[in-house]
C-alpha cells in the first residue's frame, strides 16, 4: 500500500528516480532544480540508491555523460533548469536522434536577462524542437507519478526517446505537498529493468552518432519524426497501465468544467490550479467558463485537444513565456495553427502571464477573460497581451 507523506516536491521527484532504480545520475545543480540533485546525491551516498552519481562540471557535460551512460545501456536520469538547460541545448538533439531513453526533470525557470531564478516556461520553450517527449506537471503527486512513467515510456522498445518532465520551479519544486508514495515492490512489478535494443558493447561493436551525409540525413530525420509520432499511443498505454496499478489516471489533455463552457482557458503546468479556482468563482457568478490543460506538449495531442475545446467559442490561451516579434506566443501560435488547419473558427485570445516568477491571481484570470470578450465583441485581435505590467 502506498504511504501518504508530506514531502517537498523536488524530493518526491528524486524519490521517483530511486523507486525507478536508476543506474546513472549525471547532473549539475542549478536553482530551482538543486534539491532534486542534492537529494539524489544523498540517496546514492547513503546507499539507498545503487547508482553511479557523476558530478560533472557543467550541464553540457551532464547531458554528454547521460548520452554515454544511456548508450551503454544504463537507466539514466538528469535534471536541469533555465541557463543550465540552455547550456545542454546542442546535446538534447544528440540524445533524441540517437534514440536514447534518458529521463530529465526540468524545474522550469525563466532565462536571463535580467537574471532571474524564478519560474516561467522560457527554458523549455527554447528546447521545444529537440525531439524529446515533453510534458508538464500540475502538482507534486503528478511530479512523482509522471517521473516514474517517464522511464516506462522512454524505455519502451516501441518508443526509445528521451522524456522531459516539466515542473514549475519554486511553485512546485519548493513546496511541501501530501504525496502518495508507492511501495518499491509495486513499482518493481510495474517497471521492469531497462533492456536496450542497441548499446555499446565491446563484444559486439557498433557505432552510434554517425555522420549523416545528404543521402542519409533526411531519411534519419524521417525515422525520428515517425518515432515521436508513434510514441503517442504508447504514452497513453503506459498512463493507462499506471492508472490500473496505482489508481491515478493521466490524460494528455485535462478538462475542467468545459461541458457547457462558452470560453475556455488553455494553459500548461501549475497555473491551471489557480485557473480552476478562478473558474469556480466565475461559474458562481454565472459565467460559463472552463479550463483545458495541455499535459502532453510533445507529441502534441491534436485529436484530444481539438475535442476538448470543441464547444467553446472563445479560447484564452496563456503563454508563460515570451516570443519576440511573433504574432502570438508558442502555445497560442500552435493552437491557432491547429484550429485553422482543421477549419475550426474560434476566437483565440493570447496572454503572456506569470513571467519570471510573477504571481498570477484569480482576479487576473477574470480580467483576461473580460479583455478577451471585449476584444472579440469589437472584432479586434488580442495577442501577446502581457498581464500585470506596471505602466
Amino acid at each position, binding site marked *: 500500500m502506498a504511504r501518504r507523506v508530506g514531502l517537498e516536491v523536488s524530493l518526491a521527484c528524486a524519490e521517483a528516480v530511486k523507486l525507478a532504480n536508476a543506474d546513472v545520475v549525471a547532473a549539475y545543480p542549478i536553482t530551482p532544480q538543486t534539491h532534486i540533485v542534492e537529494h539524489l546525491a544523498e540517496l546514492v551516498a547513503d546507499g539507498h540508491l545503487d547508482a553511479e552519481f557523476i558530478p560533472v562540471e557543467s550541464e553540457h557535460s551532464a547531458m554528454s555523460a547521460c548520452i554515454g551512460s544511456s548508450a551503454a545501456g544504463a537507466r539514466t536520469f538528469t535534471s536541469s533548469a533555465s541557463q543550465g538547460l540552455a547550456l545542454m541545448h546542442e546535446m538534447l538533439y544528440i540524445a533524441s*536522434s*540517437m*534514440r*536514447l531513453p534518458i529521463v530529465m526533470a526540468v524545474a522550469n525557470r525563466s532565462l536571463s536577462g535580467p537574471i532571474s531564478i524564478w519560474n516561467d516556461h522560457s527554458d523549455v520553450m527554447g528546447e521545444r524542437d529537440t525531439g524529446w517527449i515533453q510534458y508538464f506537471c500540475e502538482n507534486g503527486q503528478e511530479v512523482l507519478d509522471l517521473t516514474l512513467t517517464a522511464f516506462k515510456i522512454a524505455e519502451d522498445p516501441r518508443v*526509445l526517446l528521451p522524456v522531459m518532465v516539466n515542473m514549475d520551479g519554486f511553485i512546485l519544486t519548493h513546496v511541501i505537498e501530501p504525496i502518495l508514495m508507492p511501495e518499491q515492490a509495486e513499482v518493481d512489478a510495474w517497471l521492469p529493468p531497462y533492456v536496450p*535494443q*542497441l548499446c555499446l558493447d565491446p563484444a559486439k*561493436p*557498433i*557505432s*552510434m552518432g*554517425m555522420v*549523416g551525409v545528404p*543521402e*542519409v540525413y*533526411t*531519411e*534519419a530525420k*524521417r*525515422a525520428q519524426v*515517425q518515432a515521436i509520432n508513434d510514441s503517442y499511443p504508447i504514452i497513453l498505454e503506459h498512463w493507462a497501465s499506471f492508472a490500473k496499478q496505482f489508481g491515478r489516471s493521466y490524460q494528455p489533455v485535462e478538462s475542467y468544467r468545459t461541458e457547457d463552457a462558452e470560453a475556455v482557458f488553455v494553459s500548461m503546468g501549475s497555473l491551471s490550479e489557480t485557473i480552476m479556482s478562478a473558474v469556480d468563482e466565475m461559474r458562481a457568478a454565472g459565467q460559463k467558463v472552463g479550463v483545458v490543460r495541455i499535459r502532453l506538449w510533445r507529441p502534441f495531442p491534436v485529436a484530444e485537444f481539438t475535442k476538448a475545446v470543441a464547444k467553446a467559442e472563445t479560447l484564452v490561451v496563456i503563454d508563460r513565456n515570451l516570443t519576440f516579434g511573433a504574432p502570438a506566443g508558442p502555445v497560442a501560435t500552435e493552437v491557432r495553427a491547429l484550429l485553422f488547419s482543421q477549419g475550426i473558427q474560434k476566437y483565440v485570445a493570447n496572454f503572456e502571464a506569470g513571467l519570471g516568477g510573477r504571481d498570477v491571481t484569480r482576479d487576473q484570470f477574470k480580467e483576461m477573460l473580460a479583455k478577451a470578450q471585449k476584444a472579440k465583441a469589437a472584432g479586434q485581435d488580442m495577442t501577446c497581451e502581457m498581464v500585470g505590467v506596471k505602466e
Partner: protein
Amino acid sequence: MADEGMTSWKSLALGCAMTEPGTARRFNTGDWRSRRRPITDREKCIKCGLCWIICPDMAYDPDPKAEGYYTWDSFYCKGCGICIAECPKQAISWIEEKEEDKYGPACGA
C-alpha cells in the same frame, strides 16, 4: 542513378547507428579523385615509407611482392597530392588519368 547510396528511412538502424564494425573500409573515397593520380618512380624511391605514413586515407600499403616498397590503392586515393608534396626524393608525381582508367590496376606494383 539519382538515388545511388540511399536507403529507405524504414531500413535505417535505430538512431541511425552503424550496427557492424569496420564498414569505413567499404567507403570508396577514390571516386572523389579528379583526373590525375600519383605514381611512384621506384628508381628514385628510398623505401622511407613516408607516403604510407602521411597518406590521410591509407591509400598506400606495404608491397607484399617487393619489400620496402609501397603499393597505391585506387579505391581510397582522393588525389590530394600530399604524398607528392612530402616525398623527400620527389619520387612521386602526377599522371593524367582517363575516366575509364580510374579504377585500373594499382601503379608501382
